[in-house]
């Protein structure tokens, strides 16, 4: 999966990839004070294109808001919601809006799920629908946080650690290995990294084509930009 941390004020972004065995569950957000956890499990292509490396994508997300007693499991098939013991199941084929005391949920048919958790978090899960008979690819999901300022300072996770911003310094833009993409030096979290200018996609507005977002790409599974390494973010279950 591609991770993108965008700083709209600076009109800049940082991006990195996380690749591991398919089926791995990563912690994306963990806030011990608000009791919010977001975990995601990866899937792979149905069949490996001999020309390409094995890509992984997120296929399932598990979201917990402990204080509100809310659990959501979002897969490429359906959306399971439970709130204080009550359960509901929604399908991506629905066009649904549900407003509750603690959670608003809006499904745009076969496209996206927007969830607003009262006084804490708003996020969008994008469904990338792939032709069922596609010999290689299968449906996958994207996770976008829209409003993260209510998280505590202790929030962490592969995405959560960036919720309160980071300080980085970019210098010495120079020609890198790829002539289309210049390299630069980045000083971040006490590390000096060589980063590459590239593009990633934001699929919120256009789920098929996406919109290009220029970003500084951090190589080797985000080494240097994420605290620790990817092994530190692997968890045993979605909840």
């Amino acid at each position: 999966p591609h991770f993108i941390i965008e700083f709209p004020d600076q009109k800049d972004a940082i991006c990195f990839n996380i690749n591991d065995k398919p089926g791995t569950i990563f912690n994306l957000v963990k806030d011990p004070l608000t009791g919010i956890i977001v975990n995601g499990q990866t899937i792979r292509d149905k069949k490996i294109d001999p020309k390409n490396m094995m890509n992984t994508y997120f296929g399932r997300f598990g979201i917990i808001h402990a204080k509100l007693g809310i659990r959501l499991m979002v897969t490429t098939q359906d959306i399971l919601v439970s709130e204080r013991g009550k359960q509901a199941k929604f399908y991506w084929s629905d066009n649904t809006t549900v407003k509750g005391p603690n959670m608003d949920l809006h499904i745009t048919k076969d496209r996206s799920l927007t969830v607003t958790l009262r006084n804490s978090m708003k996020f969008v899960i994008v469904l990338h629908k792939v032709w069922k008979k596609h010999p290689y690819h299968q449906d996958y999901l994207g996770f976008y946080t829209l409003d993260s300022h209510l998280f505590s300072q202790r929030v962490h996770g592969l995405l959560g650690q960036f919720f309160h911003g980071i300080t980085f310094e970019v210098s010495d833009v120079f020609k890198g290995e790829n002539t289309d993409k210049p390299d630069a030096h980045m000083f971040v979290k006490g590390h000096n990294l060589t980063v590459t200018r590239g593009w990633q996609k934001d699929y919120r507005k256009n789920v098929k084509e996406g919109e290009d977002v220029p970003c500084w790409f951090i190589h080797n599974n985000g080494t240097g930009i994420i605290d620790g390494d990817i092994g530190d973010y692997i968890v045993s279950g979605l909840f």
Partner: protein
Amino acid sequence: SVNPSQSLSQIEFQNVKINCKVASRFAHTVMMSTALNKANVSQEVSFEVELPKTAFISNFSMEIDGKVYVGEVKEKEKAKKQYEAAVSSGQTAGLVKASGRKMEKFSVSVNIAANSKVTFTLTYEELLQRRLGKYELMIRVKPQQLVQHFEIVADVYEPQGIEFLDAYGTFITNELLPLVEKTVSDKKAHVSFSPTLDQQRKCSDCEGTLIDGDFLINYEVKRAQDLGDIQIVNGYFVHFFAPANLPRLPKNVVFVIDKSGSMTGKKMQQTRDAMQTILSELHEEDHFALVIFAGDVETWKPTLTRATEENVDEAKTFTKNIHVDGWTNINDAVLRAADLLKTARANKVVPENSASMIILLTDGDPNKGETRLEKIQENVKNAIGGEATLFCLGFGFDVKYSFLDVMAKENNGLARRIYEASDAVLQLQGFYNEVANVLLSDVHFQYPDSKVNSVTGSKFKQLFNGSEIVVSGRMNDIEMNDFPVEVSAQSLNTEFLLKGQASTRDWNIIFPDQEYIFGDFTERLWAYLTIQNLLNKKDKGSAEEKQNATAEALELSLKYNFVTPLTSMVVTKPETEEKPENTLIADKLTEDERKEVKASPGFSSYASSSRSAPVNSGTYTSTSRSSPVNWVDSD
């Protein structure tokens, strides 16, 4: 090729690789060439590729010392504005030149440092058209010198099954013939040709190469008496329609022949000769008429006549005696032809189930009677009134081809250029053979609006023997895997109606263990066909329709990275000591441009910028304390 001022031995052509993949008639060809400058001075290396006129370039790159220069497709007008100075100085912006009848030439040259290497890669795509019962993939190869590794590889994947496949080259000698390897299984074919350095030599002790000409692959797919092949792939569908064993419809044809002064000599003689064969090939149930024009219009007989042996013989004698005379009055001649057909229909001289057509042969611009081109087009359209098809043959290069092209398209037909050469008779006969046998008329495809959209066409005036109608569209929902299809038309004796269900097949079963080739083939085929249709539409219809068609064709050309008549490919060349980094433009030529470019070949250089992710230069610190937007996704 190399700059002729340099010694040939100083440039070593290490690789010429041509890789072609055809899936369901849609051909994707990649031509790659690597040259090494072994000299101790820098020298110019040029790369020239001839590609079919019907193809769209979709990619070009040059790799020099590990640095890759990639061509970028831009809106033609914007590219031109960007390089206004050069364009206003009268330079033609083109890496593409017309080359013969079927091809156009893409050429680029770069300066290569001593002991450096350059790799050129050009990709183009085209939908192969079925003509006279077969598809033809043509690869022109002219390496001009011996190549260390020369290779042509083509893979054909046809889900309908391959009926036959032939591979040969115009340059193939008896010695080279065994090197053309061909493997054909039910739905797949693999063709390769890879002569060694010695096998390429013209003679054992010379440097000349035998490899110089066209490499051709002709094939046909299996057909049944059904709806044809409908493929649904990844949210797009394509329908290939050409049922087997349909009887031909009788035709009512009016030949409109220009005998104006400019036809003097060879052209008139070739027309007379061609008419002898064309008339002989009329079937007895056909009806025909001859309209001969210069300043005035003359008809062989006042009505359409049945093509009996006696009448044909008489017509042949008449055409043998056509002599040139004066002006060119196209308007009155075509209106007379339309009137002959209309009267024949009204008087029931011709059978009800028959196809009417006008074949106009002319070599010049109208200069007698109505001479305003748009007015002639309007008059012709009104006179024909959708009751017949107009085919225009433009003889030679003086003809106003675009005028004929629009006029033909407005009347459901097409125009073809006839080149002045010794084989003009064959060209005329060849064109006639393509359109002479109508199998169905008023072919109407019905797909449910609730299931599909953006269909490339649903009504076709005729289906000719040996041709094929191709329709493509988008599925309303990517998960829809079937939809009902109905095709209705007029056939010889009965109302032709076929109904059926299109459904997705499992590509893993049809082509198991194959490298994945179906990713966006159908989508690109749809885009290619849609752009071609829109380019046709932009020449006819109301001003608003023309504008919309142009805008839509441009959008698709940019989206799918096609160099079409509305876009240009901007190629940045590396900086040299003499010249700063500069940029070239590859355009797609229109028929009129081909004529102009023929007169003034060459290309020009411009200063340019290229697309890359915007970079904030210098040192800066970015601290974000506001809530950033974070996401994780994939593409």
